C-alpha cells in the first residue's frame, strides 16, 4: 500500500507543477488578446482618461511579470484575487462589497456546474456501461451496430448541434423539458432537475460513445482468454460470463475512460451552458473572457486543469487498486 501513497504524492506534485505551467500559459494567452478590460468595459465610450483611470485602479498599468507574480502570490495563499468586473464597480463607490472576490463569484457557479455534471454522470455512466456490455454480448448483431452508429454519430456532432436537435424535439415540438435552464439558488430540487435535464441529456450523448466503446472493446478483448473459455465450457450463460468474469478484469481501462469523461463534464460544458443559459462556470468563463476579466479567467482555467489532473489521478489509482500487478512495477 505504501507504494500507492508514494505514487499519489508524486502525481500530486507533478499536478501542481502542471497547474503552474497552465497558469503561465493562460496569463500570457489572455494578455495576447487584443483589447483589455478597460477598453472592453467602456466600449465606444472609451476616452483615454477613463481607460487610464480604470487601468490604474486595477493595476493593469503594471508590467506583465509584476502582475503575474502578484497574482501568483495571492493564489499560493488561497486568495484568487478580485474580479475586475466587481472591482471596477466597487471603485465607483469606494467600498468593497461582499461579492467582489473571485472565489465568491465562482463558488455558486461551480456548484451549479458540479450539479449538472453529477446529473449527467448518474445518467451517462450506467447507460454507457450497460450499452457497452450489451454490445459486447450481442457483438456484430444489428443491436451492436445500431448502438455504435448512434453513439458515434452523437459524439461526432458538435455539441450545439445536438443541443438544438434536442431542443427541437423535446422542447419545441414536444414540450417535455424547458429549453431554458436558468436555475438559481433556492430553487426546489425537482425543478432544478427538470431544468437541467436537457443540458444533461446533451452531455450524456457527448460522453456516452467513448465510455460505451471502451467497455465493449475491453470486454471483447478478454473474451478470447482461456479463463473465459473455461467459464463457457462450464456452461455459464453468456450474460453471466461477461458480467461476472469478463467485466471485473476489464474495469481498469473503463474506469480510466470514465474519469476522463467526468473531467470533460466539468471542463467541456462551456458551449452547452451557453446554449441552455445554464449559470455554471462555463458561462462565467465565456463572459469573463469577453470582458478580459483576467482573475476570473485564470481561476476558471485553474479549476478546469485541476479537475483534469485530479480525475486522471483518481483513474490511475483506481486502476492500480483494481490490478495488483500494477502495484509493483518492475
Amino acid at each position, binding site marked *: 500500500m505504501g507504494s500507492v501513497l508514494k505514487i499519489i504524492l508524486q502525481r500530486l506534485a507533478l499536478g501542481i507543477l502542471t497547474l503552474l505551467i497552465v497558469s503561465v500559459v493562460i496569463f500570457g494567452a489572455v494578455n495576447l488578446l487584443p483589447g483589455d478590460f478597460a477598453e472592453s468595459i467602456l*466600449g465606444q465610450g472609451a476616452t483615454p482618461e477613463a481607460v487610464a483611470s480604470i487601468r490604474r485602479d486595477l493595476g493593469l498599468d503594471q508590467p506583465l511579470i509584476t502582475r503575474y507574480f502578484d497574482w501568483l502570490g495571492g493564489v499560493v495563499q488561497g486568495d484568487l484575487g478580485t474580479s475586475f*468586473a466587481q472591482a471596477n464597480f466597487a471603485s465607483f463607490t469606494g467600498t468593497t462589497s461582499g461579492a467582489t472576490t473571485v472565489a465568491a463569484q465562482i463558488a455558486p457557479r461551480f456548484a451549479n456546474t458540479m450539479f449538472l455534471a453529477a446529473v449527467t454522470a448518474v445518467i451517462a455512466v450506467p447507460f454507457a456501461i450497460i450499452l457497452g456490455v450489451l454490445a459486447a454480448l450481442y457483438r456484430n448483431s444489428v443491436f451492436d451496430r445500431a448502438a455504435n452508429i448512434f453513439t458515434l454519430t452523437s459524439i461526432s456532432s458538435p455539441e450545439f448541434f445536438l443541443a438544438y436537435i434536442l431542443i427541437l424535439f423535446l422542447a419545441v415540438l414536444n414540450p417535455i423539458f424547458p429549453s431554458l435552464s436558468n436555475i438559481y439558488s433556492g430553487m426546489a430540487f425537482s425543478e432544478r432537475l427538470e431544468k437541467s435535464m436537457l443540458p444533461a441529456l446533451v452531455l450524456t450523448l457527448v460522453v456516452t460513445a467513448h465510455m460505451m466503446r471502451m467497455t465493449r472493446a475491453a470486454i471483447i478483448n478478454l473474451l478470447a482468454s482461456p479463463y473465459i473459455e473455461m467459464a463457457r465450457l462450464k456452461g455459464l450463460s453468456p450474460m453471466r460470463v461477461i458480467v461476472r468474469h469478463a467485466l471485473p478484469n476489464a474495469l481498469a481501462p473503463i474506469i480510466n475512460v470514465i474519469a476522463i469523461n467526468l473531467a470533460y463534464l466539468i471542463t467541456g460544458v462551456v458551449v452547452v451552458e451557453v446554449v441552455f443559459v445554464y449559470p455554471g462556470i462555463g458561462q462565467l468563463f465565456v463572459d469573463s473572457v469577453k470582458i478580459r476579466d483576467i482573475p476570473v479567467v485564470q481561476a476558471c482555467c485553474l479549476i478546469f486543469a485541476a479537475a483534469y489532473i485530479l480525475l486522471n489521478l483518481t483513474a490511475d489509482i483506481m486502476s492500480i487498486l483494481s490490478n495488483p500487478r500494477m502495484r509493483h512495477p518492475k
Partner: protein
Amino acid sequence: MSGLSRRGLLKTGVAAGVLGLSGMPLRAQTRGGKFTAGLSGANTSDSWDGRTHSDVFMIAAALGGVFDALTEVAADGSLQGELAESWEASADAKTWTFNLRQGVTFHNGKAFGADDVIESLQLHVAEGSKSAAQPLVAAITEMKKITEHQVQFTLEAGNADFPYLMSDYHLLMYPAGQIEEAIAKGIGTGLYEAVAFDPGVRFVGRRVASHYKGDSAGFFEEVELIAINDNTARMNALMTGQVDAINRIDFKAEALLRANPRVRLQEVTGNQHYTFPMLTQTAPFDDVNVRRALKYGINRQEMVDKILLGHGKVGNDSPIGPANQYYNADMEQLAYDPDKAKFYLQQAGMDSINIDLSASNAAFEGAVDAAQLYQAAAAPSGININVVQEPADGYWSNVWLKKPFCASYWTGRATEDWMFSSAYEAGVPWNDSQWDNARFQELLYAARAELDSDKRREQYYEMQQILRDDGGVIIPMFANFVQAVGSRIATPDVIGNTAQMDNNRMLERWSLA
C-alpha cells in the same frame, strides 16, 4: 395633458412646465401576474450603478424598474415628469427650477427630496468618475436646494433641452447619504423593489405596494429579467413560452417567429443608425468633393435591403432620425449615382482614388458585409475601396477615431442638440469625423438656447442640410428596433422608439393581456 405633442410641450412647457404623471390615457390594464423577459446585453460586471449602464438589461432593470429619473420621455416622444413634477426656465434657458414630487419614498423608507437629487447628480462629476453622463452634469455650474422639494440648476450656457437631458438613463436618483448601500442593494424609488439580482444572470423585482405612479404604471406583481446573450437561446425561450418577451431579433429567424401564433413582432424606427465616419482633417477626406463622391458612391437602399433585410430606412448623412422632434423628413434624399460620384471625384482633380475602409462586426452586425457592398457599388465611379477587416476586440479603442475611414454606429439621442454635441460639435472627443464647420457651429450654439420652437426648427433643418452636403460621416441606414412579445402580454398602442423594449420601459408600461 393628453394629446400634448412634444413640440407643443416645448412651446408651453419650457416657460412653465406643469406636468403631472397622468400621461397618455391608458386602457384598463390587467394588474398582477408575472412578466419574464429574456434580454441580451447583460454582463458579469453589471451593477446598480447608473454610471456604468450601457445596455438594455441594466437600463430596463433600473429605469422603469427599481429606480426613477427626474423626467421621462413617454412612448409618443413627449416629456413628462417622473420624480420632478414641473420645471421652469429663465428667459435665457440658463437657470432651471425643478419642483420635485412630494410624498415619494425610497424602498428603504427614506423620503425623497432635493438633497437626493443633488447628491445623485454629483456622482457623475466626482473625482475619477467614469460616468458616460459626465458631460451632461458637468454643464451644470451650480445646484441649489431652494426648499426640500425644489432644486435650481444654473447651466454654463443656455440649454432649452435641459429637462430632456434629465431623463437620461444614467441619471438615476439615489437616497442621499446612503448611495453606496443603494448601489449595492438596489434601493430606489421605482415601481419594483429588487428581490434578487445576480450580475449577468438575472434580476427579479416585486411591485411596490403603494407607489406614487399609482394605477397608471407598473402592472405586474413580479418581474424577472433573464440574461440570454445567445440569439438562438433567446428565441427558443420565447418560442417555448418560457419568457414573455425578447429583444434584438435575429432577422434571419424572422419567418420562424412570424409563423408562431403565440408570438408577435414589434418593430419601431428610431434614431439608431450605422455610420462610416471619415477623418475630415486627413487627406483625401479634407476635400469636400471627395466626401461628396463617397456620398453618391454608396447604395443606401441596397444596404437596407441586404444588411437590415428591410428592417430599417435609408439615411441621409444626418444623425437626426424619426424619433427626434426636429427631424427634417422632407430633405432631399441622397441617392446612389455613380455618375455624380465620378463628377465630384473629377472636381477633386482625380480620375480614381484608393481608399482603405476599416470594418468589423463590432461596429454593427453586418458591418463587414456592408463595407463590401460599398466596395462593389463605388467601383464603377473609380472609387477603389479596400475593405480592411479589423478584430472585434479593441475595435473602439484601436480603430474608431483613429483609422481615417471606418464603420461605426450610434444609438441616437433624444434631442438634436445632444446628438450634435456628442459627435458633430468641433473639438468634442467623440467627433468621429473631426469635422469643423463654422456655420454649423454657429447654429448649434444659437439653437441650444433658443426657446422659440419655430426658430429652432429652422436652425436644425439647416444643420441637417449642412451635414448632408458637407459632413464627414456617411449614414447609409437607420436600423429599426425589432423585438418580440408573447401573446400573454399586452402592450400599448404606441411603443417608444428611442430605444429597445419600449424605450427600456416595458416593466412600467406593459401588462398581462
